């Protein structure tokens, strides 16, 4: 049946990233005997976790047609704030954690205020925040790492000596992102705003308020990512997660979101983050030099977006 061909073709197109991931996994398991071991795969999961959590937050923003370049810096700042408030004023760790999350959310709110009320382009507003948050992290920590409270550091451990907590946190945040995007008013409004902001406004969606929520979520997710990263290292470092925003954006885009807004799914982003992590891990196993790895990853990002663009053009 002709109809079936179309079904199959559109399924492939919709799930291109997933197919790519499967191909990648199969290829690597053939090329390297170490790849398919449980320890290695969990290792990949841990490596993917921070990028994935940042990218889930980034998915919200990209779906609205915006961009958040500040997430790496915000992650570092939130972790520093946690470690510092626990160490210096000696706040109990749960309180310190809450403060740290609040800092992440506030950074997002500032981004959104600049964008929604100051009418700055998201690129500029979050680029400024990228500098500000990084600077504040350096100021607070005076440029040196601060040890994380022990209780929080357990986030870097494994459950039952088996399941790494970062992987669990990643899954929980991913599920949360999926629920927000698919089921809630906030999520559906993100798609409408990203698809056509004026139509959304004339349909009674409070665009500025929804943008505040969107960037606040991104900031909150960044804080969680920062805490996970710091607890793995058992210390908060002011220079941590530098450049991670680009990986996060890449994961979102590889996952099928459109930078012009209105398109994107949490599952796609998850797959995108896994592709990046699998690729890095595999290239390490195959002892490809770190320099060449950058080249390969760049090519993969270009390919992913190219395929997507061709697909869109093919539809018309």
């Amino acid at each position, binding site marked *: 049946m002709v109809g079936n061909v179309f079904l199959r073709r559109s399924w492939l197109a919709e799930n291109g990233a997933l197919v790519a991931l499967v191909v990648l996994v199969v290829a690597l398991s053939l090329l390297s005997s170490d790849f398919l071991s449980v320890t290695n795969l969990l290792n990949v999961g841990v490596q993917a976790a921070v990028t994935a959590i940042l990218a889930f937050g980034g998915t919200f923003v990209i779906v609205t047609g915006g961009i958040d370049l500040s997430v790496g810096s915000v992650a570092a700042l939130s972790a520093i704030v946690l470690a510092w408030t626990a160490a210096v004023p000696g706040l109990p760790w749960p309180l310190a954690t809450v403060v740290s999350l609040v800092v992440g959310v506030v950074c997002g709110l500032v981004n959104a205020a600049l964008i929604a009320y100051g009418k700055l382009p998201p690129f500029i507003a979050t680029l400024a925040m990228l500098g500000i948050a990084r600077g504040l992290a350096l100021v607070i920590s005076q440029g040196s790492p601060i040890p994380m409270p022990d209780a929080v550091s357990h986030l870097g451990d494994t459950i039952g000596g088996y399941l790494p907590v970062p992987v669990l946190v990643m899954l929980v945040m991913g599920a949360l992102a999926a629920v927000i995007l698919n089921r*809630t*008013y906030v999520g559906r409004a993100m798609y409408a705003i990203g*698809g056509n902001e004026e*139509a959304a406004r004339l349909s*009674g969606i409070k665009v500025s308020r929804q943008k505040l929520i969107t960037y606040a979520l991104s900031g909150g997710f960044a804080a969680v990512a920062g805490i996970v990263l710091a607890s793995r290292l058992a210390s908060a470092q002011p220079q941590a997660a530098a450049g991670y925003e680009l990986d996060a954006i890449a994961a979102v885009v590889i996952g099928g979101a459109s930078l012009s807004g209105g398109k994107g799914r949490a599952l796609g982003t998850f797959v995108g983050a896994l592709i990046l992590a699998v690729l890095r891990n595999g290239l390490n196993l195959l002892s490809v030099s770190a320099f060449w790895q950058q080249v390969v990853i760049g090519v993969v990002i270009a390919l992913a977006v190219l395929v997507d663009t061709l697909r869109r053009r093919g539809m018309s």
Partner: protein
Amino acid sequence: MELLRAEGLRKRFPGVLALDGVDLTVRAGEVHVLLGENGAGKSTLIKMLSGAYHPDEGRVLLDGRAVHIRTAGDAQRLGIATIYQEFNLVPELSVAENLSLGRPPRRFGFVDTKRMHERAVELLARVGVDVDPRTPVARLGIARMQMVEIAKALALDARVLIMDEPTAVLTTGEVEKLFSIVRRLREEGVAIVFITHHLEEIAAIGDRVTVLRDGRSVGEVPADTPQDELVRLMVGRPIDQQFPRERGQAGEPLLKVTGLGRKGVFEDVSFEVRAGEVVGLAGLVGAGRTEVARAVFGADRYDTGEVTVRGRRPARGDVVAAMEAGLGLVPEDRKGQGLVLGADIGENLGLVTMRGATRAGFVDRSGQRRAAAEVAEQLGIRMTGLAQEVRTLSGGNQQKVVIGKWLEADAGVLILDEPTRGIDVGAKVEIYQLINQLTASGHAVLMISSDLPEVLGMSDRILVMARGRLVGELSAAEATQDGVMALAVAEVAGPRGR
């Protein structure tokens, strides 16, 4: 002399057979009208002549030779120019830049801005539209955008000119201008393919008509074929009453506008719309009708005056407040303001009701789907399912989605800005019947329309605007086309420029 011929064109999209073997022949020096219901395949057909789509089967001949039109560039080289139903202008660029898009005049490798402007002034004069070529296109109303599109196509000096519903957004005056341009081109031997849902235009401008139904050509008839016969060919059944307005008793005033004004746009606009009433707002393009509607709805601000909806005064410039007071607006520009093109039909239909369908932050999506399915059914939206992307709907069906969105919301006072733009004759009658149902159940409707027969046929009272002011009010009984037009142009000599 036969210039262009299409034979057995067939085109399938996922889930629909849009064209199922269509034939078309167009002669040099004729205006060939394409007629068919929404979704019949008219736009798909012409897109295969302009290189936007490729036929799965069939062939196109130009001067008796088979040609392959793969890209818009191919079409241009063959001398085929197309004005699409959905605009292809770059909103951020100026009118002049849009008119020279892709082929700006150059000097020493740089764009020659002076010549670009001269060219723009000349082209704009040819279509007789009065705009400054430096204006960004985004600031033009929809009708002027259409005139710029037409000017852009004229700049190509094509042998075949295809126009997909060029008159849908134009008022009578502009339609006349367009027709005189078309007649001149016809005399010069240009072959013109003309799509319209306005049947009266067919005899006025057309020579022959090809009727499409469900992706098939069902007949080729002369343009002076009686309208009833055209309708029967196109819809498969006759339509007995074009404007089935059932007038009832007007009740309480639901919408009251007093002394509304915005500097340089409109001033001292006062009127009311009562429960059970359809008030028509007529006038020329640029008279300020859309601007007033948007201000009333809170989409734009106003400087002076008051808006009262069912006794409440929504804050100015606040869409949500206006909606909560019971206002709804179907905007004139469906692509720019009405639809999220990349989202599916269900999502678009539920956009306004989504807030109400939210409990504890969660949207009741199955309830939303049900409501959407009901409205889609009511409006007869031709689709493969609610999950179809709105972008891939035919123009008229897209318009139905914009209307449907507000039907679902059940607004007490509905402002319709060009509601039947691009909608076929059969579906128009269905929309008029929906308007009847709305007013019968105590809703109020303010209808802006450039389609004078529609305003006359459906309104209980008619307000006429000119140059940003209300210049007259006519009852349904006393209003005639000439009467409305006389009011609409009377004030043109007035002091205020635009």
